[in-house]
C-alpha cells in the first residue's frame, strides 16, 4: 500500500531531525510532533497485523478470481496463480497489486454481464478487506 511503513518511519526521522525555521516553532511544530507520534503508534499496529491482513486479502482475491474464471474467462485463473516468494510486507504488496488489478477487471465483467452473485461477493470482500486493514487511532482529547 502507499505509503509503506519503512517510508513513514523514515519520514518521521527526517521530519524530527530537520531544524524548522523560527516561524515554524511553537504550535506548528507541536502539531507535527503529534502526527509523527500517531504514525509511529499506527506503524506498530501495522507491524503486528499487516502481514495477516495481506495474506488474507491475497487469498480471498485468488478465491474470487477462481470463482469468476468459469464465467468470465480463464485469464482470471491465470491471474490467481500470482504467488508470494516470501511474507514480507513489500512482497505481499507487490502480489496484492497484481491481484487487485485482476479483481478490478473481474468486477467490471461481473457488473456488465449482470452476474449479481459475483458482484455481491466482491462487494462483501471489499468490506471485509477494508475492515482487516483498519488501523485504530485512539481518539485524542478535544482541545
Amino acid at each position, binding site marked *: *500500500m*502507499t*505509503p509503506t511503513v519503512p*517510508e*513513514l518511519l*523514515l*519520514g*518521521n526521522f*527526517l*521530519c524530527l531531525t*530537520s531544524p524548522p*525555521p*523560527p*516561524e*515554524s*516553532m*511553537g*504550535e*506548528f511544530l507541536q*502539531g*507535527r510532533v503529534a*502526527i*509523527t507520534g*500517531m*504514525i509511529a503508534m*499506527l506503524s506498530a499496529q501495522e507491524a503486528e497485523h499487516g502481514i495477516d491482513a495481506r495474506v488474507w486479502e491475497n487469498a480471498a482475491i485468488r478465491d474470487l478470481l477462481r470463482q469468476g474464471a468459469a464465467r468470465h474467462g480463464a485469464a482470471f485463473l491465470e491471474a490467481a496463480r500470482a504467488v508470494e516468494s516470501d511474507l514480507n510486507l513489500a512482497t505481499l*504488496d507487490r502480489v*496484492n*497489486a497484481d491481484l*487487485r*488489478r485482476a*479483481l*478490478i477487471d473481474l*468486477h*467490471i465483467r461481473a*457488473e456488465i454481464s449482470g452476474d449479481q452473485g459475483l*458482484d*455481491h461477493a*466482491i*462487494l*462483501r470482500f*471489499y*468490506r471485509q*478487506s*477494508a*475492515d482487516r*486493514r*483498519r*488501523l485504530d*487511532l485512539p*481518539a*485524542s*482529547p*478535544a*482541545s
Partner: protein
Amino acid sequence: MSLTRQLEAYLGRIWEQPVQVDNMSRIPGGASRETYRFDARVGGLTRHLILRRDPVGSLIDTDRRLEFLAFRSFHGTGLPVPEAVALEEEGAELERPFFIMGRIDGGKAQSPFSEPPYGVHAAGIGQQFFSHLGSIARADPFALPIAEFAPAPALDSCWSRELDYWEGVINEDEEHPQPIVRAAIRRLRRAPPPPAQKLSVIHGDYRTGNFLHDGAGKIIALLDWEMAHIGDPLEDLGWAIEPLWSYGETDRVSGMLPREEAIAIWESASGLTLDPQAFAWWELFASVKGAAIWISAAKEYRAGGLMDPVLGFSGWYTARRQDEVIARKLCALEGLS
C-alpha cells in the same frame, strides 16, 4: 531574508508606508497551504492577519484566487467569514503565490480524529453549521465576486464535472490499485443524479476542522475555502455529512446532530428541498472525492521526500478509513448485510 522581513517589504510597498511585522508563527491546519498568523503594525494601528502561502507540495492542488474570491464573496454578508486583504498570484516578495486575510482570534478548530469535541454545545453548533451551509447554498453565485473567476457548469453537468475531475486525480496519482473506489466511481457513472435544483457557491471542504468555534457554542469563522467553486449545493451537504468526519459516531453527523435534523436545518436555510435519490449520489461522491485527496496525498508525500507527516498520515490512515466508508456504502446500496 526571513519570511517576516519579506512580509514587511511586501506590505510596506502595497500600503505605501513602513510596516512592522510581529508575532509571526506558522499554525497547523489548512494543509493545502502554509498558514501563518502575524500582526502588522502600520500607521499606529495593529492589524491581526493570516498569511496563506502556496507550499512546495500540497494535499490538494487548488487555486488561491478562487479561495480569495470566496472569502471576498461571503465576508460581510452575515456569515462568519474573515476579510480578504491582499492576493499575489505571482508571489512577489514572498516568492510563492499567497494571499492575506483577516484573523479571527479566540477560536478552536477540532480535528476530525479527536473525541467528540462539542459537549453540551453540539446541537447548537450543529444548528449554526448546517444553517450557515444552507445560507451559502441559498446565495446567488452570480451576484458574488467568485463568479468573476469560477466557471459555471450547466445544471445537468455539475455531477460529471466533479466526478471527471476527481477520477482524473485518482488516475494520475494512484500508486497502488484501488478496487473499492473504482467500484464506487463506476456506480456513480451508471446512475447519475438529476440536474441540480440551482447553482450555488460550493465551499468544497465544509466540515469539522474547517471552522472555528468559541468554546461556548458559537461558530466564529468559516475557513479553508481553497476548493471553492460553483456547482450543485448537494455537493457541500454530502461532504459535510461524510461519515469520516463523524468521530466514529453513527447517530450524529459531524458529532453534532442527528442526520434528519441536520438536513432539515439546511433545507430551511437554503430554501431548497433535498431529493433523497440525488443526495444518495452526492454522498457516495463525497467519499470518492475523499479517496482521491488521500491517494493524492500519498503520492505527494513521496514526491516531497517524506518530509510532511500530514501527507503521510492522510495517504495512509485516512485513506484506509475512507475505504471502509466506501465499502460500507456500496454494500448498503445493494442491501447487503
